[in-house]
């Protein structure tokens, strides 16, 4: 059994290096924010609007052929799914002169609204004509107008915000506000760190990324709560023990669980990343990274902040561990 090789009792003095951890985390968060502000995010069609078209790669339909035969500013790349190579074409609003007389007849306001849909129609028709394609040959064709994309972005951000607030309230209800602050700090740390990675690698940021971020938030709090539970338990048992030591024991005792669960989750998500096809790739990369920094932050960020703000929970004199409580 692997677990045999895991030391029975680790005694890593995590909290001795807590300032290193906190500084490291803060630096990473600042770097992430800086990256997002300077490099920006590679927003997918869900949030930026525009179109994505996927075709099966054949002898005729190749990335360079599509680039040379279809006019307009298109981004053409290749991708792989379960059954072969794909040609992926992305574009926003094309040059209006390409869009035909019907579009030109629209009012300026309508033009802004409909440019995205008209561009999509133009490219689809051009592809069908140039490569002699049928409808079924166009594997995917997503086109999102400016109105919906800005709404989706707003809704995604609201979802992240609401999730954060709910988590804060739940932890505050189950523990105290200092735990809530610690847990939320770790959650924000993980979310910002993941967004930073997306900016650094310019991975596509879309709706599934928001789903991944929400999962990371859930996982991060999950991880923090397991450590918090142990801190509370040890605190009740040994009332005189210094807080630093309490947290060290709690993190050490939960350490093998932290790594095992992190391990199985990463294994499962790796399977999605490798076999799940292009749609799920961004999502799974986000989750792998999120789980890694989430594991780190539950120890070094969440616990360290709880230590700074105070570990005491026992406001009520009698808790549900009567065996350790001296009756007055």
């Amino acid at each position, binding site marked *: 059994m692997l677990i045999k090789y895991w030391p029975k009792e680790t005694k890593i003095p995590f909290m001795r290096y807590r300032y290193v951890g906190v500084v490291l985390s803060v630096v990473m968060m600042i770097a992430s924010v800086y990256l997002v502000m300077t490099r920006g995010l590679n927003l997918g069609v869900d949030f930026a609007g525009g179109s994505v078209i996927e075709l099966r790669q054949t002898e005729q339909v190749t990335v360079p052929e599509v680039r040379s035969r279809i006019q307009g500013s298109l981004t053409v790349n290749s991708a792989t*799914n379960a*059954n072969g190579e794909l040609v992926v074409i992305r574009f926003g609003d094309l040059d209006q002169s390409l869009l035909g007389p019907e579009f030109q007849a629209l009012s300026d306001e309508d033009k802004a609204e409909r440019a995205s849909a008209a561009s999509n129609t133009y490219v689809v028709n051009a592809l069908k004509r140039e490569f002699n394609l049928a409808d079924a040959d*166009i594997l995917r064709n*997503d086109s999102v107008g400016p109105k919906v994309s800005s709404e989706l972005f707003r*809704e995604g951000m609201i979802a992240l915000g609401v999730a954060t607030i709910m988590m804060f309230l739940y932890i505050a209800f189950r523990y105290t506000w200092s735990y809530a602050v610690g847990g939320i700090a770790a959650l924000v740390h993980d979310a910002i760190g993941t967004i930073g990675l997306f900016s650094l690698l310019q991975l596509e940021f879309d*709706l*599934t990324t928001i789903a991944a971020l929400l999962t990371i938030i859930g996982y991060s709090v999950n991880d923090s709560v397991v450590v918090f539970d142990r801190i509370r338990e040890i605190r009740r048992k040994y009332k005189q023990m210094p807080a630093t030591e309490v947290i060290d024991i709690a993190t050490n005792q*939960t350490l093998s*669980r932290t790594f095992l669960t992190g*391990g199985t989750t990463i294994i499962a998500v790796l399977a999605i990343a490798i076999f799940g096809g292009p749609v799920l790739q961004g999502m799974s990369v986000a989750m792998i990274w999120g789980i890694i920094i989430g594991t780190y932050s539950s120890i070094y960020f969440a616990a360290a902040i709880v230590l700074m703000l105070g570990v005491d929970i026992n406001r009520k004199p009698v808790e549900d561990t009567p065996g350790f409580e001296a009756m007055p």
Partner: protein
Amino acid sequence: MLQFPAWKVLLVFGVLIWGVIMALPNAVNMSNAPGFLPKKAVNLGLDLRGGVYLEMEIPATEVISSRLEVFARDVRSAFARTSDRDPIFFQPELRGRTMLIKLSRPDADGNFPVEDALRRLDRINSPIEGGLGGGKTFDISRAGPDSLLVSVSSASETAMLQDALNKTMTIVRRRVDPDGVAEISLTPSGTNRIVLEAPGEPDPERLKDLLSRDGRMTFNLVESSPAEIASAQAGVIKPGFRLLEGPETGPLLVREIPEVVGSDIATASQGNDDANRPQINFRLNANGARKFYETTRNNSGKLFAIVLDDVIMSAPRINEPIPGGNVRITGSFTIEQAQDLAAIIAAGEMPAKVQFLDQRVVSSTLGEDSIESGFRAAIVGLALVAVFMVLAYGLQGMFAVFSLMANVILIFAALSLVGATLTLPGIAGIILTIGMAVDANVLVFERIREEQNNGRSLWTAVQAGYERALVTILDANVTTLFAAIILYTLGSGPVKGFAVTLAFGIVTSVFTAFVFTRMLTIFWMKAFKTKSFAV
């Protein structure tokens, strides 16, 4: 914690057997199974089966301005009868959501009879549809010494949009699915949006063409000589007429006021003419048939234009009075064009032209690829996690793997039960759950290991392990459940599918990890008198 009375065992196995039965149609074809067994597999989302998703919006301003236009016509015809003697003459001027009516003829004292006009307009101003408070459709107020402003109150606007939304939903359904056989879904979203999901439909352009037509059908008498057409093309149109064109007929001058309108049409369908070419047949209702008969009787020898959205479809010559109200349009149509046109005519006129906001099309081949990718990822994920757990925890790990499998089956059963839709991100949610579901097991196993290390006997260690881990398991899972619920409430489309499987996965994993694994462990310990677990 360690006692499992018979009823509990029965309950646990009952749940698992129910899960297997519910999930079975996803694995094997159940169409020949006995009647009491479920036969339907989980619904697949558009991204897995292929199809078209279209989100469209009915522009509020256009709905209101078209209602104002109708009101302007009503006003014009109400005043036209008395216009010669009447001191009031007006020109309605549409300005987006309002309409300005200017009085142009002052009375003898040089005053404009605004009050009189207000009174008269109020008489033809109908109450808000479905409204109870007795509010009127339009707010008409004095805008100056010689003008009136017609606007729409917010209550009336809401009623108009609701009405437009209902009408558009009906029309969209009739146009896309005239025979009522296709498996399409139409969902209103917000006050003025409609989401159309059409599984299996490969061509969004055809759908968009079908839906972007106004569908305004009229029959107008033609009165045009070549000279009149030439002068109309030069910009001088004789009053009461419009210059329209058609692919078959070329430019013609038609009467502005139609003889028969779309609401006079009862049904329309695609048929074939004598030479077996596709044509469009339609039947007028009693009122329409009467008007049609009278028009054909009084206008023998003239051309009669059949106009759809300001394009002349056909302009046959009237040879004799036509009773019965059966009309047909011939022309060079393909069968599909004729069917689509018939559907458009039968469905009636859109309250306003819809705008397409979001379109997602997935071909069925890509859907199959995605199912394959998802299935492969799930198998690999499950196998790797299983190997990892057995390596880490030996026998107990094996129990955890059994409960993982039970978990996947229960997720599918739950999806079937509520009729949820499985999407590609949904499959990702299941795989993620496989990875995370072991967390509850791990928490318990670690606890048992610790208790054993502290010198407790196996039975007390197992007891303490489950007892102490329970609070942590619940706390930890509730937080992820929150995230999943928020994602479900605020997310859309495929992401919702992810939230659903994640949420079900969390609930079922607590059950399988905490109840099912525990039962297996205890049965094993009783059967083999185990002294300790090799951890």
